[in-house]
C-alpha cells in the first residue's frame, strides 16, 4: 500500500528537474536545483475525512549552509491543485496577512521536514487514489562568501490514497493528535492543530475543544470550531470572551458576528472591565456597531481611561447619544 505514496515522492523529485515550468518559474527553479531540493509525499493511506498529511522535505545540496523561509502554516506560498475530477473540491484558502517566520538553517547535506495537511485546501469526496499538484514558493539564502538570496519556486505532483473508514476509526485518528497538541515545541504543536482544524466532519469537534485551553492554539481552535457551528462549538467560542489575550477575544467576536450567534449584551459589557485595554477597545467597537443607550453608564469609566485609543473610542461612542 505504501508503494504508491513512495512512487509519488520519486515522481515529485524528477518533476523538479524535468518539468517545464512557466516563464516566471524557469530561472529560479534551475538556479536552485543545485542548492536545494524539495520532496512532497503522502506516504500512508488515510481514512476519508481524516487529516491528510503531506510531508515536505527540503535537502540542502549546497556545500554551504542554506536558510529558507518556510512559514507554518503557509497558505500564501504553498498551493495545491487536484487535477482529478470528482476526487476533491478546492476550498477558498485565506491568505495569511502577516508573513513572519524564523529562518530555518539547513546545513550541507542535511534535510528539514514539516508536515502540512491537505484539508485546508480540499474537501475530499471519495475514497481512492488521486494525484495532487503542488507549487511551493520559498525565499532561499545561501551563506557562502557573498550571501545570495532568491525566491525559488518548486512544483510537482504526488499521490494520496484515501480509504473508507468508520466513525470509530476517525475518532482514533483524531485522538492520536491530542498529545501532540500539548507538545512543548511549537512545530509539532501547530502541526497537530493544523491537522484537526480543517477536517470536514463534525466528529472532530470534541478533539478541537482542548485547543481553546492551550497557549497559542486558542485562535486556531476558535476558527476551527466555527467551521462546525453546532451548539457545543458556539458555547465554547462564547466562553473565550473572558480570555486575557485580545487576539483570542477578537477571534471569538469575529466568529460570533459572522455566524450570528445569539449573545447577550452583558457578555460584551464584561469586556469593558478587562485589564487588557485592547479588549476594552474591541468591546467598544462591537457595542458601537449596535448602539444602545443602556451602554452609557458602563462606558463612562472609560472616558477617563489612561489608554488614549480606548478613551477616544469611548468618547466617540458616547457622543453619538448627545
Amino acid at each position: 500500500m505504501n508503494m504508491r505514496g513512495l512512487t509519488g515522492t520519486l515522481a515529485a523529485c524528477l518533476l523538479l528537474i524535468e518539468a517545464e515550468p512557466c516563464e516566471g518559474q524557469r530561472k529560479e527553479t534551475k538556479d536552485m536545483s543545485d542548492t536545494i531540493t524539495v520532496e512532497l509525499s503522502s506516504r500512508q493511506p488515510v481514512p476519508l475525512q481524516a487529516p491528510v498529511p503531506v510531508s515536505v522535505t527540503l535537502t540542502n545540496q549546497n556545500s554551504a549552509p542554506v536558510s529558507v523561509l518556510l512559514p507554518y502554516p503557509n497558505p500564501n506560498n504553498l498551493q495545491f491543485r487536484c487535477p482529478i475530477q470528482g476526487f476533491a473540491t478546492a476550498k477558498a484558502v485565506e491568505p495569511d496577512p502577516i508573513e513572519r517566520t524564523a529562518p530555518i538553517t539547513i546545513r550541507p547535506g542535511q534535510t528539514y521536514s514539516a508536515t502540512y495537511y491537505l484539508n485546508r485546501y480540499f474537501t475530499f469526496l471519495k475514497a481512492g487514489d488521486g494525484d495532487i499538484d503542488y507549487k511551493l514558493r520559498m525565499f532561499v539564502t545561501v551563506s557562502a562568501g557573498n550571501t545570495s538570496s532568491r525566491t525559488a519556486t518548486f512544483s510537482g505532483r504526488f499521490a494520496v490514497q484515501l480509504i473508507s473508514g468508520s466513525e470509530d476509526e476517525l475518532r482514533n485518528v483524531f485522538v492520536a493528535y491530542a498529545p501532540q497538541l500539548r507538545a512543548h515545541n511549537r512545530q509539532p504543536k501547530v502541526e497537530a492543530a493544523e491537522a484537526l482544524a480543517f477536517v470536514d466532519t463534525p466528529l472532530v469537534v470534541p478533539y478541537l475543544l482542548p485547543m481553546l485551553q492551550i497557549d497559542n492554539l486558542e485562535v486556531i481552535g476558535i476558527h476551527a470550531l466555527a467551521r462546525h457551528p453546532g451548539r457545543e462549538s458556539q458555547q465554547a467560542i462564547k466562553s473565550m470572551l473572558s480570555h486575557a489575550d485580545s487576539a483570542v477575544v477578537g477571534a471569538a467576536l469575529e466568529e460570533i458576528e459572522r455566524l450570528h450567534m445569539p449573545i447577550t449584551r452583558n457578555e460584551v459589557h464584561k469586556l469593558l472591565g478587562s485589564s487588557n485595554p485592547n479588549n476594552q477597545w474591541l468591546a467598544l467597537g462591537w457595542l458601537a456597531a449596535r448602539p444602545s443607550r443602556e451602554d452609557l453608564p458602563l462606558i463612562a469609566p472609560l472616558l477617563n481611561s489612561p489608554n488614549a485609543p480606548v478613551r477616544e473610542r469611548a468618547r466617540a461612542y458616547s457622543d453619538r447619544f448627545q
Partner: protein
Amino acid sequence: MRGNPYVPKNAPASDGMPDSVPPGKTYEVEVTVTWSQASCPGQYIELSIINGSADNGTATVAPTQITATSKVTVTGGDQTKPGNGGNLKIQAKLDGATVKVESAGFTVCAHPLDWSDTLAGGSAAAADIDDPRIVGVVVQDGWDSDSGTFGDLSETEISEVVDGGPSISPPFPAMRGGGSNSTYLTGGGLTQDTHTIGRPAAGPGASHQFRQLSIFKCHRCGAVDKVQPNSGLTITHYVFDAGGGHWKHHVKKVGAKVTVGAYTSEAGTANVTSLDHDLP
C-alpha cells in the same frame, strides 16, 4: 515595579505590568517604617528576599538593615521559571527575628524592546521579491532584551499587530483593509518579515500604507499583550511613474510612532527601501 519599558524606579502603575525586575537590573522600592513607640537603641528592621529558588528565581535587596523609612534597591538574579511568577517577596523582620510584613510577590524576567528591521541578506538585491505574481521585500527583524542579554528572552513571545486601510485599486489589487495579529512566536529567536503585495498595475500612481507594532507576553511574570517599546513601523508600497510612462513599484519600511487598536508604540528603527520593480 518595572514599567514598560523597564525603569529603575517610579514605574507608572498605568503600564499595568506585573511586579517584576529584569535579571541583573535594579528597582528602587520605598520601605516605610513606622515605630509604634520610640525605638530602643540598636533596634532595626532586617530586609531579605524570601522564597528564592531555582523555580521562583532569585533576587537580593540592599541595604539589608534599616531603622527608618528608606529607599532600598532590589536586584534581579536568576530568572523565574514559567508558572512560578510572583513568589519572590521582600520580607521585613524586627531585629532580624520577628516577621512584621511581606511585600506583594514579584518575578525576575526579561522583556523585549527596541524593534529594528534591516534588509535580509544585507542588500536590497538579496532581500528582493520580484515574482510574476507578487512584489516586495524580506526584512530581518531585530530586538533587544531589557536585561541586556538576548538569551534571557527565551520565555517571552512576540506577536506583530498590523493594520492598513483599503487599497486603491488600480493600481493595487483590491484589499479591504483591517487589522491582523501574527501568531505569537518566541522572543528568543529572531525572525524575518516578508512584505509583499499582488503585482500592481502599471499606474496610476498611488501608495498603500500599513502600520505595524509588536506586542509580547512573558511566561515568567504572566504579562499578556504588552506593547513592545519602540516597535512602531510603517510599511508603504508605492506605484510611481519613473519617467516616460515607465511605471514602477517599491516598498519602504521605516520607524514611526503608530497606533493599532488600543496599542501605541514609539518608533522602531528601520529605513528600508526595496529595489524598484518594473510594472506590470
